[in-house]
């Protein structure tokens, strides 16, 4: 009984100190809310060819016409026309489902593989939000390793300060419903970096499956996508 009372006292003291710490911590406070695309980002044309984040199936410029499309032999599901961009050209019906993995639908506020590749071709900055071991096994060519925790560190900030304000920055993680890219995006917002941040809706796995440019360690011969 005495031990139980002491145990509860320890938990209670931790609760009081933790709650007090959370209250007095001040700015930047801890938040878990997703950063919504800013109004400037949604209305301004951030890139020359009119790609807008959050509109995976937009009827804007066809990326395949602007850049050399990457080799894409995968057809995730049978479709009427697997040619790149055929389902999202101007005048197409809203939100058609494309068979091309490059145009696979993504959540609102995120960009497709095709849009990311186009930004890649234009020299946008890529931040890899995965953990260090995954990054060292291979990453998008030229990507900077930047999980959320590193963004707060001196090393991370040295790298981030190298990126000029206002530049387009694409953040990605493994794929699926990974949170790491959103965590890095949130951290950049908390640290008040003024980048034009895009979240890659698909992840690194989808990027290598689409045979897009990656950097692999020299000894990882078996990791060829």
């Amino acid at each position, binding site marked *: 009984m005495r*031990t*139980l009372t*002491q*145990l509860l*006292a*320890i*938990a209670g*003291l*931790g*609760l009081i*100190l*933790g*709650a007090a*710490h*959370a209250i007095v*911590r001040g700015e930047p406070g*801890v*938040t*878990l*809310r997703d950063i919504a695309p800013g109004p400037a980002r949604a209305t301004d044309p951030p890139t020359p060819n009119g790609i807008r984040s959050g509109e995976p199936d937009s009827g804007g410029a066809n990326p395949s016409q602007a850049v050399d499309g990457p080799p894409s032999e995968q057809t995730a599901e049978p479709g009427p026309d697997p040619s790149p961009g055929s389902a999202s050209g101007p005048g197409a019906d809203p939100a058609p489902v494309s068979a091309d993995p490059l145009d696979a639908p993504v959540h609102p506020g995120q960009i497709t593989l095709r849009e990311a590749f186009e930004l890649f071709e234009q020299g946008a900055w890529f931040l890899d939000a995965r*953990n*260090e*071991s995954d990054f060292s096994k291979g990453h998008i060519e030229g990507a900077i390793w930047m*999980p*959320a*925790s*590193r963004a*707060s*560190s001196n090393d991370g900030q040295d790298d981030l300060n190298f990126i000029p304000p206002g530049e387009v920055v694409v953040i990605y993680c*493994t794929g*699926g419903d*990974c*949170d*790491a890219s959103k*965590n890095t995006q*949130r*951290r950049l917002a*908390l640290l008040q970096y003024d980048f034009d941040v895009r979240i890659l809706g698909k992840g690194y796995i989808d990027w290598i499956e689409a045979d897009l440019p990656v950097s692999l360690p020299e000894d990882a011969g078996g990791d060829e996508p």
Partner: protein
Amino acid sequence: MSFVKLLESIVLQLVLRIALGGIFCFAAFKKLADPQSFAEAIKGFRVLDVNTVEPLMVTGAFVIPWVEMIAGAMLILGFWTRAAAATIGLALLGFIGLLISIIAREIDASCSCFGDLNFGCPDKVGWCQVLRNAIMLTPAIYLVWRQGGLLALDEVLARRADARARVALSAADSGDQDAVAAR
């Protein structure tokens, strides 16, 4: 105190107390140094819905390390050793259950057990972290059973209380004898 018991008290209880308490204090310090990362790790475990209980999760990112810090410090000092070890043991059991649930649900989550340090395990939650917690659970259970041992505040306080009780008892005894003699 026999030699074997003294050795057990010094080698096992003292060392385990300092090691386990030190590990928990360090883990708590790393989490409190970057609460945003720990809050994001809690979110990544996908146990609670962030849209409905975000403040609770954020508060948890502060409360959990503080409980670890207090229990760890008490263990090092040997103050309320049994309760501190029980707190750490229960926390470890909770973490083990949570880790197994994450593995079973095949969630790609970061552990953040020691902030940005991994101590031999990959950052991604897996069986390595379960094993590490199970290893730490053993000394916690041992300390709940055997308590603080040598150089524990509990021991010092108990000895002092014992000595005080003995003085009071002997004073009462001598008072009785005086009364008998007076009669």
